[in-house]
Every structure is written in C-alpha cells, then in structure tokens.
C-alpha cells in the first residue's frame, strides 16, 4: 500500500523525552511532600494551623476537581458532602469514639452515602440542570443542618468535638495534628491521582470531552458518572473529617454554597483537570481568605465575587478545561 501505511519506528521516538518529563514531576512531588512534612519544624504554631487548613481544603478541592475537571460535571453543591462528612465525623467523635480511623471512615462513608443518595438523579441530567440540581442539593443539606438541631446543633453548629486520638493519645499539638492531616491528605490526593490516570479515568475524560460518543462506544456513561460522583463525595467526606479534626467544630457555613464556591474557585484558579493546580488554588484561596478576611471585616465574598468575574474574563484558557460536550455548539464546527 502507500507509504503512509507502513509502520515506521518514528511513533516510538517521543518515548525518550516522555520518560524525562515523567520523571521530573515525580521528583518534584516527593520534594513537595518532604518540604510539607518538615514545615512544622520551622513554622510558628499559627502558621502550621494555616497550613493544616490549606491541606484540608486542598483535598476537598481535589475531590471537586475529579468531578469538574476530569469528568466535566460542574457541581455547585459539593460542600454538602464535605459538610456531611464533617458533621458525621464530629458526631461520632463526641458520642462514640475519636480514635483515629473511626471519624475518618465515618466521614468517608457519610460522604459516599450522601452522594449515592443524591447522585443518581443528578448524573442523569446534563449541562445546566446539573448545575441547578447540585446547587439545590447543597442548599437543602445546609438547611437540614440548620434545622435538625438534635444531631447538628442547629445554627450554632456542632461544638465541643474532642481531639482526634491516635493509639489512645489525643492529637492536641498543632504539629502532630498537622502530620495527621497531611498524611491523610497525601493518601487522598494519591488516590484521586491514581484514579485520574487509570483506564477508568481515561473513560471519565472521554465522558467530559464527548459523552454521546462514549455511549456509542459502548460505555454506560451514567454508571461511570454515578460512580465518580460517589467517589468524589467520599473523598470530600474524608476532607470533612479532617476539617472537624482541625476546627473541632462544624457549622452550617461549612457546607454552605459559599464553601462550594470557594472550592470551585480553587479548581478554576488552578486550571480545571489539574489536580496539582487545585491544591495550589486551594492554598491561594485559604491564604487570601485568612489574610484579607480580617482586614475586610468579614466581607470575603466581595473579594471572592470580584475574583470570579476576573477569572472568567481574564483566564478563559484556565476555564476552557471545564468545558463539557455541548451538543448544540459541537456540531456546527
């Protein structure tokens, strides 16, 4: 046949630079984790606490990125699962035990169950319906947290959560607590990262790019979306259990629309689909909120709103990764 059809070894050539490119992030990743692990040895307790908040929020943002960036499911109510995990972990710490894996597992299970209960309806809708439904779910869960006072403490929140215990020892010291949070955060991040790079993750990206085509290839896309929705809910629940370990308090604000928006902002700033980016975005959001929050007299949302507007106009490429198949537009080109 023609020359085009003969197999030429050129196809294998890019393997070399690939190996280099693949090796470098690994080194960087190990270095970042090491620096993060060593941080409390050099930082003041206050700064360590801020770093703890960043790790908690980064894991939450990563779980959202799995939905928004990898699968193209733009959730506006992801804090519902974060908060549900936090409330459950807090409740079990107060009423049952605060011994280490228990609040964590309870948080993960609660996030997963909450996502499983709400997810089946949401993933079967597309586009703007998904936005609306996740928003509605988030608000509903927040109102539930506000009104169900017996379990949640109502508007005051769930107070008096004891410190997490590791092998019987309560983690009171900010540094130890940070290491606990960091360890779980790194494991959670690694989990999401592995999923994103797996054959299954490739299918999720396929759904993001072109869902009808994936169906035509024989992928039951609704099942995939449901599974990733539950997984993201579960990781968010883990992040929630870390939140309560750090704050020792959960309030309805933790599962509010505002919290969802902060996470979405972290994802968008970092560039949707990039899990590292989501972590960096989370760091930016937490730092801005903590430093500006005080000077702005609690009007953080004002800044957040302006940043949203600016990001949408100025970083269209960052937001471009968020695109999911648009049936009406995709056809005309």
């Amino acid at each position, binding site marked *: 046949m023609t020359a085009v059809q003969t197999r030429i070894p050129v196809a294998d050539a890019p393997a070399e630079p690939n190996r280099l490119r693949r090796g470098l992030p690994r080194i960087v990743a190990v270095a970042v984790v090491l620096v993060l692990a060593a941080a409390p040895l050099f930082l003041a307790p206050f700064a360590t606490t801020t770093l703890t908040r960043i790790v908690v929020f980064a894991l939450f943002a990563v779980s959202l990125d799995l939905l928004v960036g990898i699968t193209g499911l*733009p959730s506006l109510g992801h804090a519902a699962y974060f908060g549900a995990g936090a409330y459950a972990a807090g409740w079990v710490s107060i009423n049952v035990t605060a011994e280490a894996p228990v609040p964590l597992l309870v948080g993960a299970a609660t996030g997963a169950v909450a996502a499983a209960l709400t997810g089946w309806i949401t993933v079967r809708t597309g586009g703007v319906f998904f936005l609306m439904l996740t*928003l509605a779910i988030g608000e509903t869960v927040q*109102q539930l947290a506000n*009104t169900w006072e017996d379990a949640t403490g109502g508007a005051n929140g769930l107070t008096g959560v004891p410190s997490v215990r590791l092998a019987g020892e309560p983690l009171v010291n900010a540094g130890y607590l940070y290491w606990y949070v960091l360890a779980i955060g790194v494991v959670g991040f690694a989990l999401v990262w592995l999923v994103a790079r797996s054959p299954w993750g490739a299918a999720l990206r396929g759904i993001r790019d072109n869902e009808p085509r994936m169906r035509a290839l024989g992928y039951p896309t609704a099942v995939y979306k449901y599974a990733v929705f539950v997984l993201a809910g579960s990781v968010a629940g883990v992040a929630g259990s870390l939140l309560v370990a750090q704050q020792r308090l959960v309030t309805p604000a933790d599962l509010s629309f505002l919290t969802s928006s902060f996470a979405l902002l972290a994802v968008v700033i970092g560039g949707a689909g990039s899990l590292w980016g989501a972590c960096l975005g989370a760091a930016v959001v937490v730092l801005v909120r903590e430093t500006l929050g005080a000077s702005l007299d609690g009007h953080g949302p004002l800044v957040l709103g302006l940043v*949203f507007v600016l990001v949408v106009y100025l970083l269209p490429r960052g937001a471009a990764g968020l695109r999911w198949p648009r049936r*009406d537009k995709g056809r005309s080109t």
Partner: protein
Amino acid sequence: MLVSVLNGFAIGFLLFILAVGLSLVFGMMDVLNLAHGALFLGGAYLGAALAGSWGGFLAALAVAAVAGLAAGALLSLMTEPLRNRSHLDQALLTLGVAFVAAEALIIVFGDDPLSVPAPPGLDGSVTVLGATYPTYRLVLIGVGAVLAIVVHVVVERTRIGALVRATVADREMVAALGVDNRLVKVVVFGVGSLLATTAGVLGGPIYGARPGLDATVLILALVVVVIGGLGSVRGALLGALIIGQVDTLGRLLLPELASFVLFAALALVLVLRPQGILGGAGARAR
C-alpha cells in the same frame, strides 16, 4: 389549613414573579443567572429602607423597577461575550456578580435581619371563612395573579412575545432567519430582572430582608423553573404555585424537614418528567 393554602398561593405568586424572569433568560439565552436571588434581595432591602408609608412603598417599587431594568441590561451585556463558553463559565460570572451585589448590600444595610412593614391599611388582618389572615398577603395574591396574566399575555399574544417564544424553541433557527434579537435579549434580561427586584419589594413584608435570603429565594426559583420546564411562562406559573403549596405545607407538617420536602418534589418531577411538567422535549436536548 386554609391559612396554609392561602400562604401557599401568596408565596406561589411571588415565586412566579421571581422565577419567570429566570426561566425566560435561560430559555432565550441559555444563561443560568445566579445573580437572580441577589436582585430579589436588592428589592427587599429597598423596601426595608423606604417602605412604611404608601409613598415610600410605591417609591421603593419604582426605584426597584428602574434599578432592576438597569441591572438586567448590564448583566445581559456582561454575559454577551461568554455566549459561546460553557454553562459553568456563565454560572461563575453571574455567581461572582451575585456575591459582589449581596456583600455590597450587607455593607450598606448591615447584616442584621430587617423587617419590612406592609403599607398602611394593608398591615392588619381580615377574616376569611372564619380564619384571620394578613391583609397584605391577600392583596399580594391579587397583585401576583394580575402580574401573571400580564406576563402571560405579553409573551403569548404580542409580537415581541412571539419572538421570545421562537428564540426559546430554536435559538439557532431564529438567528439563521436573520432576526437581530440582541435588543430583545437585553430587554428580556432587563424585564426579568425588573420582575425579580419587584418581587423583592413585594416579598419584603413576608420574608423581610436579611443576608442569605438571596440564596434561599434563588433555590426556590431554580426549583420552580426546573419543575415547570425551562423557558415556559405557564410552566413557571404552575411550578411556582406547586412549590408555594409544597413549601408552606412542608413547613407546617414537617418543619424540620421542610427543605427535604422541597427537594423530594424536585426529585420526583425530574424522575417522572425530566423536561419539567410543561417543558417541551426540545428544551432539554439543548
């Protein structure tokens, strides 16, 4: 029971005024305007600042109408460059605007909940079939019904309404026919926002004005729109009346789970009729 049904109607009509703008803006422009709740809140705060006398109440309505029209036109211009971007981008933009607007309102009016008095003469209560009922809410039902009829007639019977409906049904076709509907879009966005701010003033005596109210009413409006079907005036009316009843009844019977009742209604409709009760099959495909 009768009081609850009447409350349901009052809230239902209020929700219709609020939601119809959201529904038409979405149906016409494919833009989910998350700033819609903030517009309502703006109206509510205007009412809180000006109401108390009839003059003040009417002035609040007038200012709210003008401000709503202007805000809607501005939002329309702001979303125009994002026409070909994803729903999420548009949602993020309007979300950002909503945050800025809501915080600005809190900076101006403080973050304590404000109550809004009903205009004099309407602040008492009357006896309806043996039950006492606030006069204002009864009047609100009447005003809401009149507004619903006006909107319906405009959309269903006038030329501009026909263009709106045609754009909702098939955006590309209308564009392909060479109709320049940019002005129509600005007008629809403006009028939709005007209705939202007006609803805020009208709803003030019921809901008051407080931080967070914007999110609450936005969710209610979204639920109404989803239940009724996107871009449909009759759907918005039906959805609003249903949600008005479901919400008040839920609060009466299951006060702790009221928000779940709302969500259950939404889920039920989405499972049984994903395109909304009155939404056409086409509305969902795009």
